[in-house]
């Protein structure tokens, strides 16, 4: 060993320390490598800094430093050159509730709270019971929210509704047959029309006698006075028995039976709590609704209704049955090809013409129908993307196991496809949320509409109120949209966790 140290070519003394390399991490490193590393970059940095300086500083100054914080009318805001926050304070109820009666606003707050309670656990991936949570949010919540916000009660239940619907359908069939019969008196192809008309009328008559027990029962119930609860009991019994029989009878039907009974018990509690059987809460017309309430109602209703429409259309577009595929393609391409505002005009001016004359649809509901169809078409394309991403082998494996098309789709393909496209779905919800502002054009007062209406108040007309109002509404919109987009990024990262390195 010692001869190595003795070798002439082995250095005996230590090298002098080299200086530490230039720091490339942390703040200093960032400044060195990405801000000031070349003359051009220094110039760019200075220009960007100036740009930021001339936008951020005036904004902060306007919003906070020069702002007026207290006051009762415009005189307080005329002197200063900053934001006029007392104006927002005075208009806040209008911006959130619109003209919703002051005594009833707890209903709106309760609905918001319910939505938050249901939505937050659904969005946190770690929490359990997603299926119950989602079904509560997508099915139970809209109904409860309707009765909370709109008020009013019910005079019947499943049985009466089914009877009413079937009767309507039957009346329409008989009506069509009568029209054909009338036509046959003047037309050249009279015999053909007569045969067709008679046939249709005959079918209608047959259906009438088929559903006669239902309608008779409904009339009996209506005459008895206690219609809601009797109807409820009958519906519960029928639906639970069907669930029991379809679920596998004595062998395996007990679980569906228990679920069905529990669901109806929950419905009964809701009906009792809200007093729906005797009138419910006092009715608040939708034209009194406004502000953030309408924005949220339209977007949540759009989300809830567009998803089933989108799934149905996407499945239809991938179906091999020609007529259904052609219809789905035409439907999707039509709604995607026109701007939302013309859809809203269509829903406002054209839809009432297509409905029977004695049948009026509320303005808000009309806008909702338009938005649901429009967003549904966009969701269909998202869902289709997810369906296309599922390997063929999944469906073929299910077929090999002997599952029907419905079971394959609902148990194997759709769950995987939907999980794939959650980020895309959330992104379309963001654009839906932004697009809800368009309803202000068809005379509904959403957040933006209420804001615009509040500008007209002479009590608060000052140069700064416009900018203050826009700043306030902008912050609200930004928080919602930015939150959703961050959530979609988070889900995307979670889904792609196995692909990251």
């Amino acid at each position, binding site marked *: 060993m010692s001869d190595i140290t003795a070798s002439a070519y082995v250095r005996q003394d230590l090298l002098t320390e080299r200086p530490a390399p230039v720091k490339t991490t942390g703040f200093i490193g*960032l400044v060195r490598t*990405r*801000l000031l590393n070349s003359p051009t*970059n220094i110039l*760019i*940095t200075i*220009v*960007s*800094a100036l*740009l*930021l300086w001339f936008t951020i500083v005036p904004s902060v100054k306007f919003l906070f430093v020069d702002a007026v914080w207290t006051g009762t009318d415009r005189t307080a805001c005329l002197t200063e050159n900053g934001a006029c926050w007392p104006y927002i304070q005075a208009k806040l109820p209008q911006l959130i509730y619109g003209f919703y009666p002051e005594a009833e606003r707890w209903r709106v707050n309760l609905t918001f709270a319910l939505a938050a309670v249901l939505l937050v656990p659904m969005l946190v991936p770690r929490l359990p019971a997603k299926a119950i949570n989602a079904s509560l949010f997508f099915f139970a919540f809209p109904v409860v929210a309707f009765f909370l916000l709109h008020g009013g009660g019910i005079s019947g239940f499943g049985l009466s509704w089914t009877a009413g619907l079937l009767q309507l359908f039957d009346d*329409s*069939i008989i*009506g*069509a047959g009568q*029209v054909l019969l009338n036509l046959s008196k003047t037309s050249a192809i009279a015999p053909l029309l007569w045969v067709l008309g008679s046939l249709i009328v005959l079918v209608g008559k047959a259906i009438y006698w088929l559903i006669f027990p239902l309608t008779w029962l409904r009339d009996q119930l209506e005459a008895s006075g206690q219609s809601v609860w009797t109807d409820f009991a009958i519906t519960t019994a029928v639906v639970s028995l069907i669930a029991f029989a379809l679920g596998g009878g004595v062998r395996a039907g007990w679980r569906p039976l228990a679920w069905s009974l529990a669901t109806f018990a929950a419905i009964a509690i809701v009906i009792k709590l809200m007093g729906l059987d005797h009138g419910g809460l006092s009715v608040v017309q939708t034209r009194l609704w406004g502000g953030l309430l309408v924005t949220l109602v339209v977007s949540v209703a759009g989300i809830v209704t567009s998803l089933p429409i989108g799934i149905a259309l996407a499945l239809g577009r991938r*179906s*091999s*049955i*020609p*007529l*259904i595929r052609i*219809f789905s393609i035409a439907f999707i*391409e*039509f709604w*995607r*090809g*026109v*701007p*939302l*505002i*013309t859809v809203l*005009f*269509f829903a406002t*001016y*054209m839809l*009432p*013409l*297509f409905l*029977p*004359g004695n049948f009026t649809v509320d303005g808000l509901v009309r806008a909702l129908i338009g938005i649901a169809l429009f967003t549904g078409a966009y969701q269909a394309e998202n869902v289709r993307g997810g369906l296309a991403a599922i390997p063929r082998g999944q469906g073929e494996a299910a077929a090999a196991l002997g599952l029907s*098309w419905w079971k394959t789709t609902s148990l194997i393909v759709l769950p995987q496809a939907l999980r794939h496209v959650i980020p895309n779905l959330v992104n379309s919800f963001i654009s839906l949320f*932004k697009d*809800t*502002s*368009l309803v*202000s*054009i068809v005379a509904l007062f959403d957040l*933006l509409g209420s804001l*615009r209406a509040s500008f007209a108040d002479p009590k608060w007309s000052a*140069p700064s109120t*416009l*900018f203050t109002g*826009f700043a306030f*509404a*902008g912050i609200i*919109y*930004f928080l919602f*949209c*930015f939150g959703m987009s961050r959530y979609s990024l988070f889900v995307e990262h979670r889904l792609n966790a196995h692909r990251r390195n």
Partner: protein
Amino acid sequence: MSTEARKPPAQIALKIRRILGGKAGWNGVAVQFAFAAILGWIGYEIVSNARANLENQHIAAGFGFLRNNAGFDVNQTLIPYTGSDTFLRVFVVGLLNTLVVSVVGIFFATVLGFVVALCRLSPNWLLSRVGEIYVEIIRNLPLLFQILFWYLAVLAALPNPRQSISLLGIAFISNRGLVIPAPIGGSGLMPFLAVLALGIVASLALRIHARRALFQRGQVIRIWPYVLGLLFGLPLATMLVFGLPFTLELPQLKGFNFAGGSRIIPEFVALTLALSTYTAAFIAEIVRAGILSVHKGQMEAGSSLGLSRGATLRLIVVPQAMRVIVPPLTNQYLNLTKNSSLAVAIGYPDLVSVWAGTSLSQTGQAIEIIAMTMGVYLLISLLTSAIMSVYGWRVSRSLGA
């Protein structure tokens, strides 16, 4: 014992079944019949209800109203129009206004979008943050909000024409809109335009020739000096021969308003601003994604072949990025055109505003008017998607070759 190959079973019945009912077979045919019956029933209900309702409201269905006098004025018209013109002309006026705001918006959105994308890709940390802030803020606010913001808050806060803001003394911004110099045609206009058109055609032909030479014989022809000469030199020469093609009439402040020049209405300014800044944020993201989608190795491969950096970018990186960029970019152009219908909120006389708005309330012909409006937008988007599928087919063909 000869074993002849058995004939395959007759396929014709199976084929018919497949065509008529898809994979579901005769069940599919039954489903189709039920579906067709439901559709027919809904269609019948719609027609009969519409007929009854129109009769009740005493509205005559049909397109006869198109020849009636409109009787209202439109504050921006590209073709001559007065209140005594027909509704058909109103339709054309609105359509042209929609197209002009879309084209101008698309131009500015593209320029701004590419600039913002370059900012976001910049190695400079601060500049990329500026780009990111721009994109995040603009994308997370509703477009209608931005249109109203520009129109109600910013443009209305501008001074009146007497104190208007001057841009280099030739254009003026005030709360009455933007006033710019108006070109007035001179004696040399016709030859100038003709020579310009000739120059453009000749340059395109040169380019095609050069590309063919490059691809077929590997011969590099330098064409840019000739193109420059054709596009600028030739028109300049014509100008010297025939005189100026047009003179600019500068706007002058007279009394309370401007005389001369051409005035752009504030609605147009607000709409263009909002549409182009909004769409630019989306275009920026598309362009950024497109450029990032080209693998770093492509650039390195290009330089190892001895190509210069510019040639690598031009011949290798940009074509591949464009393949990713163009389809969503067209989609954004389409979105911008559709979003221009929000003009109705601020009263810019576009198709929706003058046609589905004013004309609808004047005539009450809801079905015809809304169907025409939707039809126009549908036609535009179907045409675009047809062009895009041709483009996609060409791209995939060139990739396959």
